[in-house]
């Protein structure tokens, strides 16, 4: 990562969001270089999801800006893909898997235009990428948690974005799904995409991500995982109630009581 000329995919300046006068995130300054797989790590209530939502204009900002390749979000929407938390929707909604994936293309279609054959083919292709081709016609109410997550991932892939935001894609999925998601993340990185992931499993940060942001309302540290993911920084993020072990792979944290 010595190449300093690498372009900045996402640049956040002085970003602050407050919920009823208490700051959820405070004065965030963050530059994310193009082509990294970045984990956003921090304790519950640290504002990780809020960071993503405010960057995507889903919650009002008290202050600050977020620029995507130098452009504000209104002008950069087609560059951005989004995977919300799986629990944020009603999976009993009457629709099929391929339909949900097609929703990833609604934004490009714009007002009034309906998805057609081309959109459907793109959706089927994305489902194939996440190993869900056989599930295209399935009703979404019949999916397991892992399959729901893959469906959401396919919907983001079909957006064909430059920067992806994923809110806890690894939450409560089984090992097979986790492996499949990691494979997709790596493929995205190989294609030069930037992926920003809210992540909770401290054990896998080093294996999965080459870039990391540690935050607890404020940014504690951000940069290449090897430099940033240290016991000291973790302690500054989580406080003293977490025990850390150094092992061959770097740092492992064990949550204490």
């Amino acid at each position, binding site marked *: 990562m010595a190449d300093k000329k690498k372009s900045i995919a996402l640049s956040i300046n002085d970003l602050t969001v407050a919920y009823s006068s208490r700051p959820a995130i405070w004065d965030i300054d963050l530059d994310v270089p193009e082509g990294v797989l970045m984990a956003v790590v921090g304790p519950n209530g640290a504002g990780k999801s809020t960071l993503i939502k405010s960057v995507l*204009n889903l919650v009002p900002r008290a202050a600050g800006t977020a620029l995507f390749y130098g452009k504000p979000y209104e002008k950069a*929407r087609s560059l951005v893909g989004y995977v919300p938390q799986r629990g*944020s929707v009603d999976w009993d909604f*009457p629709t099929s898997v391929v339909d949900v994936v097609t*929703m990833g293309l*609604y934004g490009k279609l714009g007002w009034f235009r*309906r998805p057609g054959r081309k959109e459907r083919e793109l959706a089927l292709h994305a489902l194939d990428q996440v190993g869900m081709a056989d599930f295209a*016609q399935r009703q979404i*109410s019949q999916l397991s948690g892992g399959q729901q997550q893959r469906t959401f991932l396919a919907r983001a892939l079909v957006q064909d974005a430059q920067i992806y935001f994923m809110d806890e894609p690894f939450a409560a999925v089984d090992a097979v799904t986790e492996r499949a998601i990691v494979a997709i993340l790596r493929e995205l990185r190989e294609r030069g995409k930037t992926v920003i992931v809210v992540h909770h499993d401290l054990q896998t940060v080093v294996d999965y991500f080459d870039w990391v942001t540690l935050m607890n309302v404020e940014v504690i540290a951000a940069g290449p995982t090897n430099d940033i993911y240290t016991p000291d920084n973790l302690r500054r993020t989580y406080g003293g109630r977490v025990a850390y072990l150094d092992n061959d792979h770097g740092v492992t944290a064990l949550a204490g009581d």
Partner: protein
Amino acid sequence: MGHLSAEDRRVWLLIGAVMLMSVLFIPFSQAVLAIKYTYTVRIVALGGSILGIVSGVLGSFAVLRRESLMGDALSHAALPGVAIAFLLAGRELSVLLIGAGIASWIGVQFIRSVVSTTRIKQDTAMGIVLATWFAAGIALLAYIQARPDASQAGLDSFIFGQAAAIVERDVQLISGVGMLAFIVLGLFWKEFKLVTFDPEFAGANGFRVRFINTLLSTLIVVAIVLGLQLAGVILMVGMLIAPGIAARQWTQKLNQMVILSAVFGAFAGGVGAVLSAVDTDVPTGPMIIVVAFVIVMISLAFAPGRGLIWTWLQQRGDQRRFAAQITLRDLYRYAQAHGGTSHPVPEDILIGVGGSSAQLGLKQLERRGYVNAQAGKWVLTAQGAEAAANDAHNQQLWDAYRVYGDELDLPLINEDRQRSIDEVLSDEAVVRLEHQLERGMR
């Protein structure tokens, strides 16, 4: 459209059947109930069906957005609008309805802004609006009725609805406005679907979620207002949500749900109106609601996949199937461990292991000809032994799939171990798994 799945066919068949029943109800009511299709009956029935279509279609979205109670708050909130419109502009139906719509619409916006700016939750905000707006409406109506003005007569029929007052022009109004609402729905179909399913994703994709939400609530207000004269502010919520609830039971696709809901709404509106003509004392609005909820009850009971009876039958079937499978395995394992598949197994042992489900299982197995009883013991027939061996092999293949599926690059399938694996995987894939089994499991 391509080919239709069995499920799609079933839904379209049901849609056709309900339409046919609606039409056949006319001669039926003439012959059996001795209904005379006078001008009034015709107009009220027509108005009822058209209103049923409009509220069925738009109400589907209220149901999916979990805003059924919002519908109730909104219809109650319409009452002061009727009164104020009367005071300002006199007794003209379209004017009264516009007043109703405005009051109701202000009610929604009030609820939404209370929810988004305070810590008050939606149910509480709806309770506030429902009670306050309705109370204001009742007070204003009482004030109007105390005035020496003959034209106010019957204004209180908006509380419970009065179908007999409907004339041809009213039906034209309902049809015209309903058509406009459908055009808007058609134009914004994709947006409404997205915002109802996943508003956050819609927002991130640049859709103006607030605008789309407001538009959709406005359409729902339109449906409510159109029905006020017939069903009244108190009962209108039933017309709005009943067709949608019933339709949701039968289908898993949004477009089918909306169409089915329209058909159910038309049936309830038409049939309820005609039934109320049996006797002059039967009020139309409540009768329509009763018919609509009969449809809901039937749907909750019988709809395949979701209905109570369907679920009960399936659970009973599963129970028997699983009991048979488990008992067969126990029998097979015990017999093999004691000298071979034809070795008799004492019933006590099977019951001791499996309890009452073993009894159920044995009954099933005997019926299939898999086992024979011999003096308190059970013996596998040749057929039974083969079935047990096949089952054991099938489970081994499933085990192999779980362990080696990735390695052998087999497609991702649902692990449904009750099914034979060769139904779900290609022959070639099964052969590869067999191969793996011969080489031995890890």
